[in-house]
């Protein structure tokens, strides 16, 4: 295991060094473009609902729609072939190429043909295959693999492409600029296209009612490939079928924005083949229109595991995916390394876990699945509302449950009362059972804190569990928040304090259960105390009962069974605090995200809704109190200059503005960061194999916070992970925003 980790760390480091800059520049541009062009779209949320509903309906009725599209294409004069797997699809296309005695086959970009290695198959017939998309062409010459599902050569800089062309074509006049490179590639490829015998394209969408295929492109190569030769083969996964041609509209509006951040790509071809356009005659002097074309169209619909995905309750949602790449571009880890580290045999990014598990098998997903940290930044970006982190959690669970028992297993036994199979990987169990560790460490503090400083302890932790020794470990407090609260008089004393502070204008007479998440309870106890005092000063009585961990830690390690048990225990522990009287206030955003998000998958609907409806993030709650008459002057209002980094899940839930607003109403001056994630993401940054990546991600946040106008500001951040990461990256110590508001 330790050797595997070292190897994985070295591989990631190499990719960071060789292609990190190119990947980062390009994905950030796509990401910015997406936010901008989505802003222009009034109906964005409604279009996403519509798109997801169309896909769900299509997946439900898939067998019936496949029959319908087959009928439609045949009526139009084409042929449909339903290919069971990669070999079957390859055989079929090779047969067409042989029958046509094709010498030159031109391809436009298609991930589905990558999935089945179709270019290799066609070459086995003796025909030349040309990738006519410029990015794919670069990879073909370089014998390289795509690193991004939309922009496949994103990891190569202009300089590298120039060197590649200059050497490959042995050019006397070396190419340099992007214009020169483009012109050169176009000339080479134009020759191929103009003399092509067969064209192979993908299809972004296929409509069952008319047999129409939609191709979303920008370079114009797909249009030319379809127009020039008489034979056209379109290869598409069965999930590309949508019921009607009218269903295309939301996708046409969403796909360019979600992909490269353009409101629409140069060309959206809506073709109902065989097309009527005359093919290009071979003879230069022949009039084009003289010869009515004898066009031949084949639609190859590929199963290759998709029908089984459809039957798999958890993987099924993956089939909605339109491969737009929004979940890649919005992912902080992906922005640093691209698809060569964060990708499997064919697909890349968070959703690749679903695709790879479905079409190539879980082994292919295993190599990169940990790079999805569950930060959830992609969730609101997906045009078909796929819960990408959840798919990663499920596949992580399946992979790990299938793994072998390790030789250090005895070290966590007894300590880790988890629900997962005995063979579940040790590192995942260690982080997944953080709560048990924290309890023990707090009970034995400060001895437990000294223990980790003993020679050899960090080496063992790194060797056995992969906890990187460069990370500072949390320092546990002897007195937990729950104990402190009891010692100062519990709920009764809190009620008195709150009533004393209460202003008559406050229109709110509920009580708050402050949820003592594991970190707030044992490690960052100060922020918990501040939260109690801030609630009281705003006039709300507080209770801090002993409630177990939310299950976030085990869930992030794919330990769904353990997480589910914890969720049930949380609900049980809160039962005596009647919903009619008590709200639940949460300090740690990732735990609030559990209550409002993942619990839907872990609990019965009524239990989930009851808790989700009465749960609030601490400053969201404070905002509500201020809106209902609480007095901001009871907060600490010393007009500080603050630099605020919101937590990933807090932003996904749309809660960041509340924190900013409360801080401002208390008279503070707030500037915010705009990076997607701090890079720590729970336990991710502690792991030996991901330490470098975590620090690389964090570096963007660091540079924002040391820039002019930011360097002098007090750093505030809501999440524990962000806190740890910022603490490590910056000279100055971060604070939870509630501490800035605590006048104690």
């Amino acid at each position, binding site marked *: 295991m330790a050797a595997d980790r070292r190897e994985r760390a070295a591989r990631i480091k190499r990719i960071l060094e060789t292609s990190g800059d190119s990947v980062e520049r390009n994905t950030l541009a796509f990401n910015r473009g997406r936010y901008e062009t989505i802003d222009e779209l009034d109906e964005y949320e409604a279009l996403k609902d519509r798109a997801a509903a169309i896909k769900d309906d299509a997946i439900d009725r898939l067998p019936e729609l496949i029959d319908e599209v087959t009928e439609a294409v045949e009526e139009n004069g084409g042929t449909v072939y339903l290919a069971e797997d990669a070999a079957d699809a390859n055989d079929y296309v090779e047969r067409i190429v042989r029958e046509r005695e094709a010498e030159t086959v031109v391809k436009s970009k298609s991930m589905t043909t990558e999935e089945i290695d179709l270019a290799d198959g066609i070459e086995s017939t003796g025909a030349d295959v040309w990738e*006519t998309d*410029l*990015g794919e062409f*670069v990879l073909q010459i370089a014998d390289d693999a795509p690193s991004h599902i939309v*922009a496949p*050569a994103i990891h190569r*800089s*202009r*300089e590298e*492409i120039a060197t590649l062309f200059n050497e490959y074509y042995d050019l006397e006049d070396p190419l340099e600029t*992007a*214009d020169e*490179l*483009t012109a050169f*590639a*176009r000339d080479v*490829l134009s020759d191929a*296209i*103009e003399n092509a015998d067969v064209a192979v394209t993908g299809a972004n969408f296929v409509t069952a*009612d*008319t*047999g*129409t295929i939609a191709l979303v492109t*920008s*370079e*114009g*190569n797909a*249009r*030319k490939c379809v*127009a020039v030769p008489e034979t056209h083969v379109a290869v598409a996964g069965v999930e590309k079928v949508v019921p009607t*041609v*009218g269903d*295309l*509209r939301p996708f*046409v*509006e969403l796909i360019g924005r979600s992909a*490269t951040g353009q*409101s*629409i790509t*140069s*060309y*959206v*071809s*809506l*073709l*109902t*083949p065989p*097309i*009527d*356009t*005359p093919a*290009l*005659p*071979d003879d*230069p*002097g*022949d*009039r*084009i*229109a003289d010869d009515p074309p004898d066009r031949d169209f084949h639609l190859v619909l590929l199963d290759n595991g998709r029908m089984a995905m459809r039957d798999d309750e958890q993987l099924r949602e993956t089939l909605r995916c339109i491969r737009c790449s929004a979940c890649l571009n919005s992912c902080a880890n992906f922005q640093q390394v691209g698809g060569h580290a964060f990708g499997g045999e064919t697909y890349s990014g968070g959703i690749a876990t679903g695709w790879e598990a479905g079409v190539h098998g879980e082994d292919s997903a295993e190599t990169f699945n940990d790079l999805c940290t569950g930060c959830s930044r992609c969730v609101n970006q997906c045009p078909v509302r796929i819960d990408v982190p959840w798919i990663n959690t499920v596949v992580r669970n399946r992979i790990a449950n299938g793994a072998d028992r390790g030789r250090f297993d005895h070290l966590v036994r007894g300590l880790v009362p988890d629900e997962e199979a005995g063979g579940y990987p040790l590192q995942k169990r260690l982080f997944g059972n953080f709560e048990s560790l924290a309890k023990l460490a707090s009970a034995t503090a400060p001895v437990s804190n000294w223990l980790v400083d003993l020679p050899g302890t960090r080496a063992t932790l790194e060797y056995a569990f992969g906890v990187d020794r460069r990370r500072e470990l949390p320092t546990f407090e002897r007195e937990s928040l729950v104990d402190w609260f009891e010692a100062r008089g519990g709920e009764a004393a809190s009620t008195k304090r709150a009533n004393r502070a209460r202003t008559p204008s406050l229109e709110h007479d509920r009580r708050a259960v402050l949820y003592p998440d594991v970190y707030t309870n044992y490690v960052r106890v100060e922020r918990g105390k501040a939260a109690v005092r801030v609630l009281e000063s705003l006039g709300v009585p507080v209770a801090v009962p002993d409630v177990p961990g939310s299950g976030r830690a085990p869930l992030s390690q794919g330990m769904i069974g353990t997480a589910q048990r914890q969720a049930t225990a949380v609900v049980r522990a809160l039962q005596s605090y009647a919903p009619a009287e008590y709200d639940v206030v949460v300090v740690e955003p990732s735990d609030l995200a559990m209550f409002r998000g993942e619990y839907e998958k872990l609990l019965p609907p009524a239990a989930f809704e009851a808790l989700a409806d009465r749960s609030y993030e601490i400053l969201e709650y404070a905002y509500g109190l201020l809106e209902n008459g609480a007095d901001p002057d009871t907060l600490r209002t010393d007009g500080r200059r603050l630099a605020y980094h919101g937590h990933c899940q807090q932003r996904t839930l749309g809660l960041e503005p509340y924190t900013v607003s409360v801080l401002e109403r208390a008279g503070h001056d707030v500037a915010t960061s705009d990076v997607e994630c701090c890079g720590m993401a729970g336990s991710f940054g502690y792991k030996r194999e991901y330490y470098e990546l975590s620090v690389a991600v964090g570096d963007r946040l660091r540079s924002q916070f040391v820039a002019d106008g930011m360097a002098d500001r007090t750093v505030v951040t809501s999440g524990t992970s962000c806190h740890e990461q910022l603490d490590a990256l910056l000279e100055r110590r971060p604070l939870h925003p509630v501490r800035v508001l605590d006048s104690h």
Partner: protein
Amino acid sequence: MTGTLERFEDAVRGATASTHRATPETIGSVLSELLVEPAVGAPPPFDDVSLADLPVSVATEPTRQQLLEASTGVTGAILGIASYGSVVLRSTADVDELVSLFPDRHVVLVRDRDVVDDMAAAFDDLVPLIADERADAIVATGPSATADMGALVYGVHGPTEVHVVVVRTDSHAADGTGGTG
């Protein structure tokens, strides 16, 4: 509030194409300014304008060689979409698809009355066309483009320049030949 036509022209320019206005009377002179010879063309999908009696010569029944050597392709669009600056091109049994795709410069005519507000309105027209006639159509926006070579470049396999000529066919429109962009 600006009108649909103005929003269309703004969006076309935003998509890195130029806009021009003409009437059936002025189309000859507008096109003579925009065409770089040799030019090939396909008859537009409306009767208001004909490529036959232009002061410049446009080959409407080109050979393979004429198509591949042409500098300009002239075609007509069935729709303009104001919110995107897109034109909708047909790909019929004539040479329209080839002519709008191969030459470096594409000059595309669209009637003012065919410009619609948004994608929803465009689909209202496109759906019956595709469902009933099994027509092929391309929603084209600006020139062909790529970012695959390390920077944004216009002009890859499709045209490098796109010039959109709005043909005003309603009775009170007659504001001449002025190009805007």
